């Protein structure tokens, strides 16, 4: 049997399993029967198995260069190295959706395994919802985006994957991270819809909702940062973020998920903001779907977008159903979601989180509006307008600065009401630190209101964050006479989410500083160098560069022109860098690989523009970006923080379990919650 029919068989199997599990789950959940759950679980396992096998079949076809499979004939090539052949699984539309399927399968499998002993009716609803989403995706794979078609006649070789995707190692990690973030939002969506369908929103729902959002959020954050790093290291235009529709598509759910993570704290403490928190959970999923739609429907103009496809209309119908279904659920369950406790003081932690949520939603709205505006205008008015970087920067930067301020002010505020005097005392030292940072920067010759404000606020927020991180440890050291290390570890263990959250904040503050410094104080020069001419160097910001030689070479899947530059840095250190142009066999345009000399305080970024026909001269785009490495430097903090916060803890699990049993009578319909102990 051919790979095509085997693979397609698995996809059909996935459609059947997912649809069966979805229908059984929702029916059993709504009828409040326990019996259906075992079938839902089996369907979830079977869906995963089918998706895994379908993906393995595709990988095998790619590796064996089986060009009878349409997808392989589109992206495969005998010249492509093995690693990139495997990676080409997600390098084009059909494969990326197939890959999406296996990630979704893995998430559903993990969720089902972890929660298999939880309340069966509730879990039937949640897993059922996830499986309905899975039905849609496997339907896409089976129909409009089928990668397992057959080609005839079978070609001898294919064009290979998009050269941009073969040019850098980051392309191997970045898309899976982003997909894990995107797809992961299906799980909180399933949990939230389950809760709303059931009509009970207690702590037993909130714990998994929080945890799974946090996991997906972690992947999404890493995916976004890696994506910008990739753009910086590969595309050669010296930027890392262009407010492109595809970048915005990944940023939107990140914003609402971040708002969600913060608002759950209020919900937990104050039992308020329930409707709002649920809305954020649903909106996050909807935005991931909208983002996928924008990337793949072909009606948005983007450098990254996949080419034309037929999945747009199908996707639109799915988004429509999900969108109106979510709105209807929120409307119906409005009474259950009403706040049980009021919020009091404007000078409190909860008020700062409310403000944080408002700002995040405002940024989300701005980015969404700006991204959709050209499409809206074209569709409704036949007018072509553009919305790009200048708009997004001027709108989002001021709001983001308030967020940065809140990142410092919020954690210094207590829950509940607070004394203004006490608050001022808490903020005194951090404010002083902020002012000091501004003074030092201004004294060292830095100008510009926005970057200076950013550095000042970053100093302010960082000092609050560090105090919040280490004060519990200091208290332990003083009171329990623990050693510093033990005290830090213990205090982190005692309050994982709090500790992890602050670690993430450090990373975000680094991103703020890196973005502000690299965009405000970049230096740029364009120049031509002749090989061997050491007396006429190209200079920028204390660096001087001469061209040693120009080399042409061949690698298995490409040829290249590399220019060897000798760089003398301001400190006098001499080193050689080699920006190059890569030429791929089946692509007419060369792909530039810039050379980056990265240091903590600044990057020297050299991009090869052109080489003279005779091969004796070359011209370059040279930039200096201060602090730009801090943006990717945030990765360890974000990863560590998310891991600390999301790490399963026995204590929490036990509490959540107990919570399911001891649900207050008013929380859910009688009988519903009590079975949770089973």
């Amino acid at each position: 049997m051919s790979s095509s029919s085997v693979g397609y068989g698995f996809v059909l199997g996935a459609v059947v399993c997912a649809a069966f599990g979805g229908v059984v789950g929702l029916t059993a959940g709504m009828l409040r029967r326990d019996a259906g759950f075992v079938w839902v679980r089996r369907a979830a396992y079977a869906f995963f198995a089918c998706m895994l096998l379908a993906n393995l079949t595709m990988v095998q076809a790619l590796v064996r260069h089986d060009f009878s499979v349409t997808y392989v004939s589109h992206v495969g090539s005998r010249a492509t190295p093995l690693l990139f052949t495997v990676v080409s699984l997600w390098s084009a539309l059909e494969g990326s959706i197939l890959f999406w399927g296996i990630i979704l399968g893995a998430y559903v499998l993990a969720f089902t395994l972890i929660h298999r002993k939880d309340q069966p009716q509730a879990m039937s609803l949640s897993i059922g919802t996830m499986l309905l989403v899975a039905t849609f995706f496997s339907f896409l794979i089976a129909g409009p985006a089928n990668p397992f078609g057959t080609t005839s006649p079978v070609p001898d070789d294919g064009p290979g994957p998009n050269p941009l995707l073969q040019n850098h190692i980051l392309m191997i990690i970045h898309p899976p991270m982003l997909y894990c973030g995107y797809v992961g939002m299906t799980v909180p969506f399933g949990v939230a819809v389950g809760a709303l369908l059931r009509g009970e929103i207690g702590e037993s729902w909130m714990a998994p909702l929080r945890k799974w959002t946090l996991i997906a959020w972690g992947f999404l954050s890493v995916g976004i940062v890696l994506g910008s790093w990739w753009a910086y290291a590969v595309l050669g235009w010296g930027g890392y973020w262009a407010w492109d529709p595809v970048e915005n598509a990944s940023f939107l759910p990140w914003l609402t998920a971040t708002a969600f993570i913060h608002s759950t704290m209020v919900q937990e403490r104050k039992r308020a903001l329930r409707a709002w928190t649920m809305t954020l959970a649903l909106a996050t999923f909807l935005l991931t779907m909208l983002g996928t739609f924008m990337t793949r429907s072909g009606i948005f103009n983007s450098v990254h977008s996949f080419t034309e496809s037929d999945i747009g209309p199908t996707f639109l119908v799915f988004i429509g159903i999900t969108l109106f279904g979510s709105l209807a659920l929120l409307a119906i369950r409005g009474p259950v979601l009403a706040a049980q406790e009021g919020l009091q003081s404007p000078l409190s932690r909860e008020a700062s989180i409310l403000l944080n949520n408002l700002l995040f939603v405002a940024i989300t709205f701005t980015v969404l509006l700006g991204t959709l505006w050209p499409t809206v205008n074209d569709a409704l008015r036949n007018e072509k307008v553009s919305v790009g970087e200048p708009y997004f920067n001027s709108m989002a930067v001021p709001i983001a600065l308030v967020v940065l301020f809140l990142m410092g002010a919020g954690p210094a505020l207590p829950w509940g009401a607070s004394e203004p005097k006490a608050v001022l005392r808490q903020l005194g030292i951090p404010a002083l630190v902020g002012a000091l940072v501004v003074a030092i920067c201004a004294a060292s010759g830095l100008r510009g209101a926005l970057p200076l404000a950013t550095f000042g606020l970053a100093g302010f927020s960082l000092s609050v964050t560090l105090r919040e991180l280490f004060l519990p440890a200091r208290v332990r050291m003083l009171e329990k006479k623990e050693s510093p290390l033990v005290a830090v570890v213990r205090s982190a263990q005692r309050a994982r989410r709090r500790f992890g959250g602050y670690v993430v904040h450090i990373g975000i503050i680094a991103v703020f500083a890196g973005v502000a410094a690299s965009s405000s104080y970049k230096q740029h020069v364009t120049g031509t160098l002749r090989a061997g001419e050491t007396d006429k160097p190209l200079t920028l910001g204390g660096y001087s560069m001469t061209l040693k030689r120009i080399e042409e070479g061949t690698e298995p899947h490409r040829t290249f022109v590399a220019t060897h530059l000798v760089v003398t840095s301001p400190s006098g250190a001499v080193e050689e860098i080699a920006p190059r142009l890569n030429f791929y066999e089946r692509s007419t345009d060369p792909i530039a690989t810039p050379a980056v000399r990265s240091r903590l305080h600044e990057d020297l970024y050299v991009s090869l523009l052109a080489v003279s026909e005779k091969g004796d001269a070359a011209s370059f785009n040279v930039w200096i970006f201060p602090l730009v490495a801090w943006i990717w430097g945030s990765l360890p903090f974000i990863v560590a923080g998310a891991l600390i916060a999301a790490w399963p803890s026995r204590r929490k699990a036990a509490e959540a379990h107990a919570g399911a049993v001891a649900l207050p009578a008013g929380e859910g319909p009688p009988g519903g919650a009590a079975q949770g102990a089973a």
Partner: protein
Amino acid sequence: MKSWLSIAALAAVTLMVVFYRAFQKDPGSLREVPFLLKGKPAPAFAVTDLQTGAPVTSEQLRGQPYVLNFWASWCGPCQVEHAAVEWGARTYGDRVRFFGVVYEDTQENAKRDLTRRAVSFPQLWDPKSRMAVDLATTGVPETYFIDASGIIMDKYVGPIDREALAYLVGRIAPPRAEARP
């Protein structure tokens, strides 16, 4: 709660309508860059002949229809259309003047490219692309059709073929009327 839910529902309906309308559009039109000079007088230009160095200005060309074909030696699609443009110059050369315009290239490379093929019409050298941007090009190949009064009747984006060329030349220079009773 109720009020903002209805606002959200309204926004959702609008969004669906927008996407539905977007799907009805020709997907190609999405990438099309608006061209506002169509039907307007061509901006004045003053460039030189690539081979002879003689000046060529829009003023000299007034009173006769002409075709401007922007191309570059590095441009793949341009290689595809050269034959069609050359055919056009030979077929309609008596009614319409044809010019090639070198776009974002070096003189050496352009000249070398010209030695590889037969070209019967003059090539213009636009050193800083001022003429190209004045005429609102978006890249190469692009072909402009300018009538005797200096109005840009059309711009063709992408490699042109004989059929399109014949049609568009007809718009700036109607075929000589046959003697009719």
